[in-house]
């Protein structure tokens, strides 16, 4: 591992981020990454956060057109409420703050506590939960579906609405609409290794893959002998399409988990597009790359987001962050 000691990996990365991105304010001590121009007058501020190890999520998505601030926790551990309260206070222009929260027990609890504390400080806070992972059975009796690749869509599209000056209720309802229209499915070809543990989080023998994995090195729901890119695409896209049942065009995210080369991801995208064509799902836009990762895990995930004209327009709107940058 390219680290000094496990205890300082998050702080070290933040120092490096600060050096690479002068357009951001990085508070290494308090663990908040912010737009340097925040608060932006009249704009709703999106604040997200979560465990580290998923880079570029969330810090790499801070900037005009996306997040106003991100709060990185320890590796795979949600941030603490103090971070989100500090971030909210720093970026709130008076127009309110939207917390974008991935649906994991820890994130939900810490953001809930943060929302209460921020409201005590007179900040208007709304929350949206991202729960797009179809590999998890959604049931009243479990923690529910996980938030994975859909997070990028929620942050990009709701962030564009905020940048346009939409009020908090509107930004919140767009964020919810995006989440409802996003579905993801992930596959691991290898487990990941957290710096603290130093060995793989689960045991995945050579020649096998794990279907339905999360982004924290959690084992998936099923293990099978190695499949080809073509077979994986059939399996993953079917799982997503059957759950989403899109009636209109989708944006496709073909996401790498951290250790899969772009060469393979693009090859996999060709297969994803083939399956989508066979299922007669029109694809409006496609994004290929490592965006919601799981440390050094090899593998990929597919996210589809069904879009109408408004959501597509907001997706295309300019964005200027370390990891996502287009338009103007």
């Amino acid at each position, binding site marked *: 591992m390219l680290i000094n000691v496990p205890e300082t990996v998050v702080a070290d990365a933040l120092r490096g981020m600060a050096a690479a991105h002068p357009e951001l304010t990085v508070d290494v001590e308090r663990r908040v990454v912010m737009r340097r121009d925040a608060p932006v007058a009249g704009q709703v501020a999106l604040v997200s956060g979560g465990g580290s190890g998923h880079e570029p999520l969330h810090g790499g998505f801070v900037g005009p057109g996306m997040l106003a601030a991100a709060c990185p926790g320890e590796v795979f551990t949600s941030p603490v409420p103090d971070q989100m309260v500090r971030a909210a206070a720093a970026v709130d222009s008076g127009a309110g703050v939207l917390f974008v929260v991935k649906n994991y027990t820890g994130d939900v*609890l810490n953001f*809930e*506590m943060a929302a209460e504390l921020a409201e005590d400080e007179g900040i208007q806070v709304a929350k949206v939960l991202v729960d797009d992972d179809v590999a998890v059975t959604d049931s009243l*009796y479990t923690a529910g579906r*996980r938030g994975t690749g859909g997070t990028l869509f929620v942050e990009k599209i709701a962030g564009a609405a905020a940048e346009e000056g939409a009020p908090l209720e509107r930004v919140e309802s767009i964020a919810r609409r995006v989440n409802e229209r996003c579905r993801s499915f992930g596959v691991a070809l290898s487990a990941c290794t957290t710096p603290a543990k130093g060995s793989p*989080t689960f045991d995945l023998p050579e020649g096998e893959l794990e279907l339905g994995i999360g982004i924290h*090195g*959690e*084992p998936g729901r099923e293990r099978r002998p190695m499949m080809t890119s073509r077979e994986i695409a059939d399996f993953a896209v079917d799982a997503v399409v059957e759950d989403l049942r899109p009636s209109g065009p989708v944006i496709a995210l073909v996401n790498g988990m951290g250790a899969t080369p772009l060469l393979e991801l693009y090859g996999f995208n060709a297969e994803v597009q083939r399956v989508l064509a066979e299922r007669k799902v029109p694809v409006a836009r496609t994004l290929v790359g490592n965006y919601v990762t799981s440390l050094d895990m090899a593998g990929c995930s597919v996210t589809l987001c069904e879009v109408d004209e408004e959501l597509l327009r907001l997706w295309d709107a300019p964005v200027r962050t370390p990891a996502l940058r287009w338009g103007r």
Partner: protein
Amino acid sequence: MAETVDAGFLVRWLVAVAEAVDREADRLTELDSAIGDADHGANLKRGFASVTETLAKEPPASPGAVLVTAGRQLVSTVGGASGPLYGTLLRRAGKSLGEDGEVTRERLAEALDAGVAAVSQLGGARPGDKTMLDALVPGVEGLRSSYEAARAAAEEGALATVPLRARKGRASYLGGRSVGHQDPGATSSALLLAALADTARTEEA
């Protein structure tokens, strides 16, 4: 054994918890990597080390204040689910003790019971869901009889999570594959009550 306990006793308990968590961190992480995300040991270690440090700097005057301070510190330093949950357990228990300078074991059990109820409400879990409650609920019930009964019941409760299928927390994503593994949260909860019994035993000696 002393009939009542004071703030010093609770500080010694939390120091003992920090030592136990430090000693068992690798085991907790190992259990967590089987059905979770391999961070439970490191997180609790960081949290209780910070609790010990805070309590040493400014020792609160009452048992209630010790627990409230410790709980707040856990919320601010642990993150994950265990930060808010263990933080709430101690904070609520501390609030329930009020400002009394000395409390009986029975009163401590009642206060922890209020803390457990708050944890259950916050996390939405119930006994049998394969969570920390599976050790805390029987452990705190046992505390009404004796410190050793609390230790034994919590330990038994933690072991009894092995055949359970997780319905809350990250292990629930695994469905049936969570069966056959001991829950890391229940295991750390059992450590808390074992440290309490150790502290009481030391006082007695």
